[in-house]
């Protein structure tokens, strides 16, 4: 039985090549692995090895021939050296797929906040610690690791008391080795544990970016749904105070860009507690962006032991009819202060606390803008390709006809954050900036 040898594809992009040289002649014995010819591709000269044994019965394409298309028969191999007609293995033509349509529908609104009963004032720091303690009591597969989380009780004291309660097996001090411990935590999550990774700040998570994106976010998809990664990456994000450019950056839009991640950014104590509990229970990788300045701030938080919030649902912190201000994390406070100042001037702003950036609660924003017809976004991060840009585009897509004025972005200045007190103040959004932005469109 004779088989045809076909012009091989020798690179991911090759469609044709030059048959540079035959290294076997008609009548020669060929063993699997023997080099039979040389082919020049667009990149290099490659050797073609025989896959099967036999005698070279016929050469169909002479050496020196250029532009030989991939899969063209170039020779015939047969057991006895005689040429018989045999159909070559043909490549089944791939069906032409229709261009995929991305889901543009507005996601359904998540369940409304339920009434959780009496509240008491606690700090964001306490809320975060309580959330971890409650979830660690609830599920033995949950553990915390990071730099200084155990014996030091947390660089920002978020993990205070956890080592005492849960022991060194579940509250683990790591060396300063973000890439290594993040990869280790992701590996543990792929095998079914539920790690909470504390980054002392999200600035240091850049060292581990590959493991967060390529390993944590993509494995579920790459494994055809077999292997999920239930993990929380948490820590302070954004500017603190006078710590300079390398320690002051908002990573919200970096992570929100990535399919396979959820990105959460709490403002209040209730946000922190309810959303961290939901993040720990979520079967997906969750980026949980805290803020150092908020840690010591006090807010009312439900006392109910079962209190939890849904990821993907924004909260209307203040209702108003003249315009919508959308903010997240510490900027919700800035927006609320601005709204108070505006109210004194007779302008009623609706303030939306996003809580979650991916998935984004587009429905709540759209509903508000359809009512107020004006949009101002507030974020601490840089403007270019930022969260404000994305929210504006969502409104253009879903509520363009309801807009009475162009949306306005309030954001951190497009510079590395300076150290000098006066310059730093010039770079980060203040309530007055929001008031000025609102006045442009109201």
């Amino acid at each position, binding site marked *: 039985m004779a088989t045809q040898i076909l012009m091989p594809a*020798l690179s991911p992009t090759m469609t044709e090549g030059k048959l540079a040289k035959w290294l076997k002649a008609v009548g020669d014995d060929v063993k699997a692995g023997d080099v039979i010819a040389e082919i020049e591709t667009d990149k290099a000269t490659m050797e073609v090895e025989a896959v099967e044994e036999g005698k070279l019965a016929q050469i169909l394409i002479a050496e020196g021939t250029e532009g030989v298309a991939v899969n063209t028969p170039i020779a015939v191999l047969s057991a006895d050296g005689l040429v018989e007609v045999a159909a070559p293995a043909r490549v089944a033509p791939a069906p032409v797929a229709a261009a995929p349509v991305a889901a543009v529908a507005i996601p359904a609104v998540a369940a409304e906040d339920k009434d959780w009963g009496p509240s008491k004032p606690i700090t964001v720091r306490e809320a975060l610690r309580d959330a971890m303690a409650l979830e660690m009591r609830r599920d033995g597969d949950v553990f915390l690791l990071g730099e200084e989380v155990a014996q030091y009780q947390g660089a920002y004291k978020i993990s205070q008391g956890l080592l005492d309660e849960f022991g060194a097996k579940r509250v683990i001090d790591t060396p300063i080795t973000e890439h290594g411990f993040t990869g280790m935590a992701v590996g543990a999550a792929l095998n079914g544990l539920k790690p909470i990774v504390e980054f002392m700040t999200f600035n240091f998570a850049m060292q581990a970016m590959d493991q967060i994106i390529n390993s944590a976010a993509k494995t579920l998809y790459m494994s055809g749904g077999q292997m999920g990664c239930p993990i929380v990456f948490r820590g302070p994000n954004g500017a603190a105070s006078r710590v300079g450019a390398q320690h002051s950056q908002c990573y919200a839009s970096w992570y929100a860009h990535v399919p396979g991640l959820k990105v959460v950014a709490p403002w209040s104590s209730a946000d922190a507690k309810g959303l961290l509990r939901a993040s720990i229970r979520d079967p997906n990788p969750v980026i949980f962006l805290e803020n150092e300045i908020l840690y010591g701030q006090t807010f009312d938080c439900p006392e109910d032991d079962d209190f939890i919030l849904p990821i993907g649902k924004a909260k209307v912190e203040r209702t108003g009819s003249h315009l919508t201000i959308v903010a997240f994390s510490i900027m919700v406070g800035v927006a609320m202060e601005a709204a108070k100042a505006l109210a004194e001037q007779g302008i009623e702003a609706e303030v939306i606390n996003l809580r979650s950036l991916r998935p984004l609660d587009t429905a709540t924003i759209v509903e508000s803008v359809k009512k107020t017809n004006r949009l101002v976004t507030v974020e601490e991060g840089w403007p270019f390709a930022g969260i404000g840009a994305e929210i504006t585009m969502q409104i253009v897509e879903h509520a363009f006809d309801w807009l009475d004025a162009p949306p306005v972005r309030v954001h951190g200045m497009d510079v590395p954050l300076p150290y000098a007190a006066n310059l730093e103040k010039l770079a980060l959004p203040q309530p007055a900036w929001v008031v000025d932005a609102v006045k442009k469109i109201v």
Partner: protein
Amino acid sequence: MAQAAETRKRGKSKEPLVNQPDLMGAYRTMLLIRRFEEKAGQLYGMGLIGGFCHLYIGQEAVVTGMQMAAGEGDQVITSYRDHGHMLAAGMEARGVMAELTGRSGGYSRGKGGSMHMFSKEKNFFGGHGIVGAQVSLGNGLAFSNMYRGNDRVSFTYFGEGASNQGQVYESFNLAALLKLPTVFVIENNRYGMGTSVERSSASHDLSKNGAPWGIPGLQVDGMDVLAVREAAETAVAHCRAGKGPYLLEVQTYRYRGHSMSDPARYRTREEVQAMRSQHDCIEGARHKLEALGVDETAFKAIDDEVKGIVQDAADFAQTSPEPDPAELWTDILVEG
């Protein structure tokens, strides 16, 4: 002070280790990997497999010997040169080949490709395309074993090229510090793409690369499946006894280019031929089996069986349908 690392050279295996049924099994696994990879190369040439495709031909004894020492539930994680590891871990040739052709019958339903396949059932954790990333992840597998208090061991494979990545050393430190039950397997095939180990590593004995952290290491002849098994047994016993990680530098050779589009001009044809003709792991195992009295009929039976499995896999990989277009939007997040 940390105990000095135990580092010695392990050469050819000793005769008493030769056990005919085990060696026949290893011979069959190695042959299956080779024939599978040859077929993959052929399908690539026909345009049925796209993108990157890194063949394991020449290195078959490494994963085969390691798996001979593996126990129930031990995990395997490796780089993008992963087809051999999957077959040795017991994954089906059909599912692997169909993933290579990007079909719905593949292990990742066509969404992963050559470099990204996984099997929870067979404890195979990929299949990772970023050089060195699987080493930290492998620590995580070992960590989960320790956390759960079982005696499973994770096998973390990487090349000598990957051994220069920073996270590998972060992982050595963490593994030694936390006493993680993991066997680090450096598959030294002498070339990281086109750069020889001499040109990329200032360390001349990679088995000593874990020495600063007290990780014991062995250099192993990776063309001799029994030598690999013997070293693997030492390493696994160390890990299972709770003594922490172990490092094996398994010296091997890849006959093909780094990937399908690599003309391999950085080494001579004579060098490749010498390895193939004098050190081939399958030929070596065959000679040992012949000396034990295994006859041609038995070899022929294995050849035929392997050929059948590979042909069936190739047929399946060409007839399994492409993934449904709706698959584009599935498996991004776990719902609920």
